[in-house]
């Protein structure tokens, strides 16, 4: 299966002259992509199963680098530029990379780290401009070898590394290709970071259907992507639902001209009013809601939406996550928590971290998703979490990951983060217990956090109290703190 998949991927890329990359007037074919890939491959020196970080933006050469790393049987590790160094350092110490390919300036600390740890540093643009070429000839990859490693927020303050084997993610791609009626020559939107694993969907489905990728590169395009998808004639849209909700917010009653015939929605609860907007205002023929986790091979459930869902699931207010994809086994424990096993389950976190998330039951290994699900009218729905993990703009965030950092700030004794979802935009808030004599300014604490956390993890509002509510065991009473916040009892 693995060999056939990669032979097919290679054939689709190497033997096609159809567009591979479109960004307004910039367009490159697969033939041009393959020519660059061979040059990059020449610099990989025939190595296999090496952990290769790609630190880059969404220029054409970066896509060629990603496919080169994957088709040479190395392990792709996407890193989004702009991460604060202490966090990136924690990730690199866990990963122990062999090579870093980059096309944007590397932070000085990253460069120094690579040099002191014998990590090869290579500039993608220089590789792509070289003379030497090496074709891709061997596709006998072992299904249990790693294909890529992605990082997710961890409760200890250091992100967790999630290795995905070839078998893990190929099962998801095979499912997507069977379920979704792609046409040849689609244009896939590429909205999110590569380090958000929705990227796996379009990075593989696009070449395998002879389709182009159309990246959204600038922050301002990301805010309101209408001009981007109109001008690039995007036919397959994929994003978290809040991107659609933003368009809906500003243009609630208009029909938005576009070329979509498929919308692939995932990563967050998908509200029925946003589905209505996809169907009626974006006039999208096929809308799918996918649900899954990085640890279990991107997506594990799907639901093909229909106009009938609007009435059928009205009581819930949300689109169901639907039914499991083939190759995934599920069970619910006594708390209603979803456990997943099957061929998409990661072997383990890097360095064996958080082994308690995996449990062997009756000889089968299961992953505790932390999501509570229930069945309603024959379909599965996500109900909430068993822990303090939240989702913001599709990013999975362990609130404790933030709280660990907040507690390091002088004068802060305790910290509890929460998400205020009472308004249309979710707001990340932090309540701090401070020392009696401490004077703490929100601005200072935000600036300190920005040195350790990506921007989306820095709380927008801070509240300071002298005594945090605790339960009889002395533990922080998170429920009471939430109540105090929503009652407006915090200042």
């Amino acid at each position, binding site marked *: 299966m693995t060999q056939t998949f990669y032979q097919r991927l290679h054939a689709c890329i190497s033997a096609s002259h159809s567009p591979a990359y479109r960004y307004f007037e910039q367009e490159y074919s697969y033939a041009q992509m393959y020519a660059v890939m061979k040059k990059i491959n020449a610099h990989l020196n025939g190595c296999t199963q090496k952990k290769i970080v790609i630190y880059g933006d969404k220029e054409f050469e970066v896509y060629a680098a990603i496919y080169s790393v994957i088709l040479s049987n190395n392990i792709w590790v996407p890193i989004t530029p702009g991460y604060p160094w202490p966090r990136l350092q924690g990730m690199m110490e866990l990963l122990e990379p062999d090579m870093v390919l980059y096309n944007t300036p590397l932070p000085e600390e990253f460069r120094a780290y690579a040099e002191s740890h014998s990590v090869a540093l290579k500039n993608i643009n220089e590789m792509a401009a070289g003379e030497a070429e090496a074709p891709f000839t061997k596709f006998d990859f072992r299904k249990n070898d790693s294909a890529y490693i992605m990082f997710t927020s961890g409760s200890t303050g250091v992100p967790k590394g999630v290795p995905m084997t070839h078998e893990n993610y190929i099962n998801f791609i095979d499912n997507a290709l069977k379920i979704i009626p792609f046409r040849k020559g689609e244009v896939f939107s590429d909205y999110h970071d590569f380090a958000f694993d929705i990227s796996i969907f379009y990075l593989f489905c696009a070449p395998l259907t002879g389709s182009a990728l159309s990246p959204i590169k*600038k922050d*301002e*395009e*990301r*805010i*309101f992507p*209408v*001009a981007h998808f*109109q001008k690039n004639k995007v036919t397959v849209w994929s994003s978290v639902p*809040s991107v659609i*909700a*933003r*368009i809906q*917010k*500003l243009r609630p009653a208009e029909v938005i001209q576009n070329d979509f015939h498929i919308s692939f929605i995932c990563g967050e609860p998908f509200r029925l009013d946003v589905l209505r907007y996809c169907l009626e205002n974006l006039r999208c023929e096929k809308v799918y809601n996918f649900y899954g986790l990085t640890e279990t091979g991107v997506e594990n459930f799907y639901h093909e939406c229909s106009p009938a869902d609007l009435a059928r699931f009205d009581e819930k207010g949300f689109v169901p996550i639907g039914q499991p994809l083939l190759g995934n086994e599920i069970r619910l424990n006594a708390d209603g928590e979803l456990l997943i096993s099957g061929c998409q389950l990661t072997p383990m976190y890097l360095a064996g971290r958080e082994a308690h998330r995996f449990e062997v039951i009756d000889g089968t290994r299961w992953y505790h998703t932390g999501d509570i699900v229930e069945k309603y009218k024959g379909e599965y729905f996500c109900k909430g979490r068993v822990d303090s993990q939240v989702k913001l703009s599709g990013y999975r965030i362990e609130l404790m990951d933030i709280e660990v950092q907040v507690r390091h700030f002088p004068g802060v004794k305790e910290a509890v983060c929460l998400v205020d979802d009472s308004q*249309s*935009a979710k*707001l990340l808030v932090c309540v701090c217990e401070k020392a009696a004599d401490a004077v703490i300014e929100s601005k200072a604490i*935000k600036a300190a956090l920005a040195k350790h956390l990506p921007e989306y993890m820095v709380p*927008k*509002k801070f509240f300071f109290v002298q005594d945090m509510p605790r339960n009889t065991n002395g533990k922080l009473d998170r429920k009471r703190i939430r109540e105090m916040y929503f009652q407006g009892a915090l200042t």
Partner: protein
Amino acid sequence: MNDAVDAKRMMDPRLKRILLGALLVDDIAADDTIETVDLWDSMRHMELMAALEQEYKVVFEPEEIIRLTSVRAIAKFLEERGLL
């Protein structure tokens, strides 16, 4: 007129009221942008654009929505249309 729309105009009370209301902030300065105001995120930006459209009876093009991410740019846009 370029960025020299004077600070007094930029802080036109009507514009300031809309900015404060849509962005849920207590104060805003003439040189603030989506980068400098924590609560000015992409969803609040849509709230702001909708509020401006309603108040000034304009309809923004998609390109304008992604460009009007600073107080200065908004003031200039309104100024050029004789709305400020």
